């Protein structure tokens, strides 16, 4: 049995460097899980790809008699791919947390030096990775099957991607909070919550077609600004910065609310003794 001085055993890093190391550890934990399992990788691409294929054929069917699709063939395909950025972004945050609950690993994490904001940062990083894998696969098949490249949107694509991913993070954090509060019984929320926002996000139609009340709701959501902006680029060839900026500001509000909810749920779990006993 040998022991060494703690200074020789452990890094002396503090602050940001120590935080980055712990976030990297979380990413490593989930990367081990994802990258060694081809069924997981396939399932991440499966739904976005199947949905994209569906809308690709709808486009082919409707295009001859539709002026919108004639001038913007990527109208539906761009929408479905961007919608999946939002969906995968949210799932990436929620599922990363749910994985810890499945593994009954939450207690280990909360007793380690990992801070709450580092846990959140790890969830967000995994969300980016999951989104790139899931939507990246669908983008590849969109090009392969329909010769549609999402990258034809140019720089606005990056702007849309950032805003949708951020809104996905906010919803993902809120969903994680609800699962922490109500346990894995609320897991369905991780898959269903996003669809509450679909009708009022104007994914496939302008916000103007919605009833007045729904329009009012829509304009409180960053996703509505993004999809309006996408239509502006596709139909008019114009990127509206004001729409992007409004979405960006709203995202900070929503992420703040999501993070606050998650923090509240951790406090609730800490108060009720749920952290050690959380799992299937």
């Amino acid at each position, binding site marked *: 049995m040998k*022991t060494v001085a703690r200074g020789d055993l452990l890094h002396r890093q503090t602050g940001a460097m120590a935080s980055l190391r712990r976030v990297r550890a979380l990413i490593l934990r989930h990367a081990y899980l994802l990258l060694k399992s081809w069924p997981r990788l396939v399932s991440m691409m499966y739904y976005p790809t199947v949905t994209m294929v569906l809308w690709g054929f709808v486009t082919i069917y409707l295009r001859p008699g539709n002026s919108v699709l004639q001038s913007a063939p990527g109208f539906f395909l761009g929408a479905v791919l961007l919608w999946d950025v939002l969906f995968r972004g949210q799932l990436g945050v929620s599922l990363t947390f749910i994985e810890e609950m499945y593994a009954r690993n939450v207690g280990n994490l909360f*007793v380690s030096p990992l801070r709450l904001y580092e846990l959140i940062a790890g969830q967000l990083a995994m969300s980016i990775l999951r989104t790139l894998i899931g939507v990246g696969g669908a983008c590849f098949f969109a090009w392969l099957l329909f010769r549609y490249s999402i990258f034809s949107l140019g720089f606005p694509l990056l702007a849309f991607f950032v805003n949708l991913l951020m809104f996905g993070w906010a919803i993902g954090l809120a969903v994680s909070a609800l699962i922490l509060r109500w346990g894995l019984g609320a897991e369905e929320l991780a898959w269903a919550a996003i669809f509450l926002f679909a009708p009022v996000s104007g994914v496939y139609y302008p916000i103007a077609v919605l009833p007045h009340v729904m329009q009012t709701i829509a304009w409180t959501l960053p996703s509505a600004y993004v999809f309006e902006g996408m239509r502006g680029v596709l139909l008019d060839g114009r990127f509206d910065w004001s729409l992007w900026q409004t979405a960006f500001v709203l995202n900070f509000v929503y992420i703040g609310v999501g993070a606050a909810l998650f923090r509240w749920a951790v406090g609730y779990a800490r108060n009720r003794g749920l952290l*050690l006993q959380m799992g299937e």
Partner: protein
Amino acid sequence: MLKPVAPAIVVRDLRKRYVDVEAVRGVSFSVTAGTTTALLGGNGAGKTTTLSMLLGVLTPTAGTIHVLGEDMTRHRYRVLPRLNFTSPYVDMPKRLTVRENLRVFADLYGLRTPAARIAELAQEFELADFLRRPYGELSAGQRTRVSLAKALLNQPEVLLLDEPTASLDPDVGDRMRSYLEQYQRASGCTMLLASHNMGEVERLCDDVIMLRAGTVVDQGAPRALLERYGRDNMEEVFLDVARGTARDRLPVEIER
């Protein structure tokens, strides 16, 4: 080497009330640095609740906890890098191999040379043959050994152990207890354990805190408790305390 005598853990008037149950009712104790103390009591006595509050994963309703001189409710993150634990209530990701799991925790605790430390612990706990196997494919006993290895990754100054050898066969259990004894001698670590294995308590512990219904009903060295209760082994002492039958056997002032 002289043993340090300052308390590593100081708990004062600790209380935990859930909605309609008071699980811990004004518990106070201290654990001298470099010693091993057991929390003993029947199911529902408040052992795991107390350990959870010490770990910072359960917020006390009242009272104070100081670990290594730091207030756990206010400065938890100063202590957590110097502390570790095992509990039957937690597990590790089952699809990750043992090596991957240990690597992740090595990074979380900030080890300089994770691979070397993992190899060292794998040798100590006889895990070398399992390092490449998914954690979920291990037997309960093997998992317990991996959990203990994880708990010692950061060479903790305070180790909290909830039923540390519960699912191990007598041979492996004995070897784990020997390892914990050696580790404590080598590192001067402070250990607090909750256990139902009275042989383990007699062998490992310098001090025993007896809990019943969320309160400390007695405390002392195992030998002193045996003498006080007029019993031959800790199991009989445990039964006296858990069943509340100690009253007939004790001087009035000991029953608090």
